[in-house]
Structures are given as C-alpha cells and as structure tokens.
C-alpha cells in the first residue's frame, strides 16, 4: 500500500512546549474550565452525601458510646435521666409501615394493572396525571385531613365495629381512640399508593406486547394473561416500586406525627397510640434539653438514614433491571 516518508511520521507527538501550548489553547477556548467547573458541582453531590453521613455519625457519638447496640433494643426513653432506648420508635415505624404496605400494595398494584392493561391510553395518561398530583400533595396536608377527618371516621366506622366483632384478639384490644398505629398506617398507605402505582404502571407498560399476545393466542382470558404472564414478567420492577414506597413510609414524618398519638409504648393493639422515629425527631429536636438528648435523636436519624438508603438502593437496582432502559429514571 501507499507507504512513504510522510506516512511513517503521521502523528507527530507534540513536544513539551507543544503540549503546553495545546493546554493553553484548550484553556483559552474554555472547554477545560467548563469541564472542571461542572465536574466540581457534580462531585459536590457526592461530597454532600459524605458530609451528611459524617455529620450524622459525628453528632451521635455520645449515645453510641454510652448505650452501644442496646440503644436499638431497649425501650426506656427518658430525657430527664438521660436514658435513651429507641425500641418503641423502631417498633412504631415498622408496624405503621408494614400496615401501610398491607393496604397500599393491593390498591396500588391493582390500579396499576387497570391503568396499564385495561384503560384506554388517553384515560390512563389522564388518571396517571391525577396520581402525579396526589404524590405532590404535601405531607402536612395529609396530616390535617388525617387528624380532622379520617381519625373520627376511622374510630366510628372501623375501630368500634372491629372491636365489637373481634375484641378478644390482642390486635384490637384497648379503647378505640382513633389516633394510633392504625390511623398512622392508613394515612401512610394513602400517601405511598401513588409511588407504587406510577412505577408499577410504567413497568407493566414496558412488558413486550408479544408476551400478552402469546398468552391470549393460547386461549387465556385477559385476566389470565395479565396475572400469569404480564405481572410475573414485571415482578422485579413491581417489587422495586414497593421497596421505594417502603422507604417513603419509613421516613414519612408529618402525617404520622399528627395521627400516631406520640406515646412511646410497644403495644400489640393497633388501636393503641404509638410513636415513630421520624415523629420523635420532629417533636423533640427543636427543644432538646441536653447534648445527650439531641445526639440520641440524631442517632435515630442515622438509623433512619441507613435503613432508607439500603432499601432505596435495593429498589433502584430492582427497577433498573426490569424497566431501566430509559423509562423509569
């Protein structure tokens, strides 16, 4: 082929001066500077996260040293004598979130199936927009509705009848006061349904059409094709949406604070008032009496942070593995 002296020397390497020159040229037309500046801001997202972890860790030294792991498993919370055990809050958080998922999952996944499989696209998109608005409603407003509207209704039409029918079960023991685990669970359920719904709908919509057609062609009814083919295909993504909702429920503060009753006790009864991690932080951090007190509250924040981060990380992985490719960012 064509070889000559010039082709042998085709990519002249810039010498030291040449390289310097090239770098100055680069700076002059601004690309490097723009690159570095935007890089710094992108990196700051990571730095903020590191700083957040550091602050949570460094400002909860006292109770960690004093109580160690027993912080998580003892149940005395006494700011006056500086005894701090987080169990009632952890219990309340777990129970209300579990209750919320119990109600929200069938509701959210069911509605997602309806919107993805049955509703005409226009209606589906319109209703999804309503759901998006629902997700935008501030938590404190759910709290207001919860305390003034839902709690009285819940007491009269749910708790009292349940008590009459199943009062012998420990689950429904004690006076029906309205506020308590049940109320918090129901408000949380209403709040997280939009998250389950919108992501599950997207995941379901991303299931290839041929999967449905294959099932229908074999004589399955629409429901059979949906339940036995489409939903299993989208299972991982739906699980992801549920995890995301769980993380939301665990960290949700205002609405829970307003209806849970704010009483640090562990009770088997759903009607009993309780407390949650986020609620106690919201209630006590502003007027924490001692250094040990606010550090104990911040340690609770650290626990909440760690748990939600892990659940979120799992949820993202689950969602990315199914719907990833561009839709569910």
């Amino acid at each position: 082929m064509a070889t000559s002296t010039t082709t042998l020397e085709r990519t002249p390497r810039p010498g030291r001066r040449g390289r310097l020159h090239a770098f100055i040229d680069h700076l002059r037309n601004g690309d490097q500077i723009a690159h570095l500046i935007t890089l710094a801001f992108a990196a700051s997202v990571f730095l903020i996260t590191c700083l957040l972890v550091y602050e949570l860790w460094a400002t909860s030294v006292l109770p960690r040293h004093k109580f160690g792991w027993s912080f998580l498993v003892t149940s005395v919370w006494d700011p006056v004598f500086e005894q701090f055990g987080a169990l009632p809050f952890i219990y309340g958080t777990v129970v209300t979130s579990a209750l919320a998922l119990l109600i929200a999952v069938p509701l959210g996944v069911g509605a997602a199936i309806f919107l993805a499989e049955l509703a005409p696209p226009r209606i589906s998109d319109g209703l999804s927009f309503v759901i998006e608005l629902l997700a935008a409603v501030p938590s404190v407003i759910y709290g207001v509705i919860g305390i003034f509207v839902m709690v009285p209704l819940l007491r009269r039409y749910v708790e009292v009848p349940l008590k009459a029918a199943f009062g012998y079960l420990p689950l429904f023991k004690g006076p029906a006061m309205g506020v308590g685990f049940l109320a918090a669970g129901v408000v949380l359920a209403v709040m997280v349904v939009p998250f389950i719904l919108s992501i599950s709908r997207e995941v379901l919509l991303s299931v290839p059409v041929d999967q449905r057609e294959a099932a229908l062609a074999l004589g399955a009814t629409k429901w059979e094709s949906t339940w036995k083919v489409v939903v299993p295909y989208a299972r991982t993504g739906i699980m992801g949406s549920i995890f995301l909702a769980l993380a939301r429920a665990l960290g949700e503060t205002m609405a829970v604070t307003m209806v849970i009753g704010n009483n640090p006790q562990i009770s088997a009864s759903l009607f009993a008032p309780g407390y949650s991690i986020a609620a106690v932080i919201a209630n006590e951090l502003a007027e924490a009496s001692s250094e040990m007190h606010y550090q104990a509250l911040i340690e609770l924040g650290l626990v909440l942070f760690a748990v939600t981060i892990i659940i979120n990380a799992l949820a993202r992985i689950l969602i990315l593995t199914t719907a990833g490719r561009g839709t569910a960012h």
Partner: protein
Amino acid sequence: MATPKLILMNGTSAPQAQPAGGNVAQPATAALKLRVRDVNFYYGAKKVLHSVSLDVPPNKITALIGPSGCGKSTFLRTLNRMYETVPHARAEGDLRLDDEDILTMEVTALRRRVGMAFQRPNPFPKSIFDNIAYGLRVNSSHSRAALAEAVEGSLKRAALWDEVKDSLHKSAYALSGGQQQRLCIARALAVNPEVLLLDEPCSALDPIATAKIEELLFVLKDSCTIVIVTHNMQQAARVSDQTGFFLLGKLLEVNDTRTIFKKPARKETEDYITGRFG
C-alpha cells in the same frame, strides 16, 4: 515538533512528492486542498476504514459514493474530526489540510476552515439571522453592521436571500425542508470555510429542492472546495469533478467522474454503478 512542516499561505501548498502506487489517482498539479494517506478508523476495537488515501484538489467537487455502511460518511467525518463526538472513535493516519496535520490541529480552528452540512437540515431553534450569525459570533466578536453584512452575503451565496430577506428575524423552523437545508449551508458559509463537507445533503429533500442545492454547488465551487457524500449516483455524476467509490471500509477506486461512470477500473465499481448490488 517531530515533523518538519511547511506551513504556507492560505490556498497554496508546496509541491510535494506524491506517493507512488496505491490506488490513488494522481491529479496533474500537486496543489492539493486535502491530502489523505493511509487513514484507518476504529469504533472501539472495530475497524471501519482500511487504509484510505485520497487527494482533493481545490475548487473541485469530490463525490463519495458506495452502499450504505461502507464508511463514506465516517470518512467524511474524519476530515473535520466530527467523529470525536462518538466515544471510543479513533482515526489514525496522515490527514492534511493545506499541508497542515488535521489530527493535531486545534479542532475548533479546523472546523472553522472545514464547514459541514448534514443529512437532515439542523437549524438551531433561533431566528434565521441568528442561525447564520452563529458561527461568526462564537468565533469572534463582530459589530452589528458587520454581522448584518456577513449574513446577507452568506444568504446570497446560498441563493436564499430573496426568499428570506423579509423574515430574517422569524424562526428558522418556519422554513421548508429545502430552505432549511440551504440555510444550514449558508450558516456553514458564513465563516468562509475553505472546504465544505456535505453528508447526503439531499436525502431528506424533494427533487425540486435537490435541484436547487445542486445548482448552488456549481456556484460555490469557485470559492471553496466541496466534498459530498451521496448514495444517489446520478447526483454524483451530475455535480462532481472526481468520484471515489467506497466498499466495506475501503476506497476501492477514485478517478475523475466521467471515467468512473464510463469506464470504471474495478469490477465492483461497475457492479455498483450499474445497479447489480447495493
């Protein structure tokens, strides 16, 4: 610098020894605008151009033809290094513009000298005036009057002035497809490029708009050198002075257009031109 280079005044270059042999057609004079030797191109590990060599004489139209996927567009994009927007794309070889090394030139300076218009018209979402003035504004500051003059000049060169002179401040998106493509050519012309690269500029246009662009090319070659990629052989035959035929990443044959279409040297070229494949 490792290579002694002759940097000459715009438009002329030193007579140089041409590499002997190969499949390169030798033009009569040695004054070349673009001189390409042994260019290899890779997308990651995949080699898509194999040792391509081509001479482009000034003020001529060079057409590159070949079936789709043959590497002609990739080759065009090595001439102004537009391939650099693709991650892991890499060109090797000797590419010279007026004897200056294209691969080590400052890339913005290169692209100012080697303009380009694309397959689909891509006006910016700005006014017609701002579209044309864009290249001037990013390269240096100009007075209002100088800009207006340059915009008018470019639009006239692209034969678009009469159609848009009353709507310079309207959105470029209001124009028809053919007008948009001429606008994009005018936009490239505004910075006075020495070379104009056209990547299938008529593939999205109707025959009338195509004819207008072809007319335009004849006029433009007085002031710049044109390299056009096309999959339309009639177009290559109509407008170009020399034609190169690409197949599977190789420049199989290049010669003056009449010879290529009348008496191609290679069997593959003949097959392609007569429509036996492609």
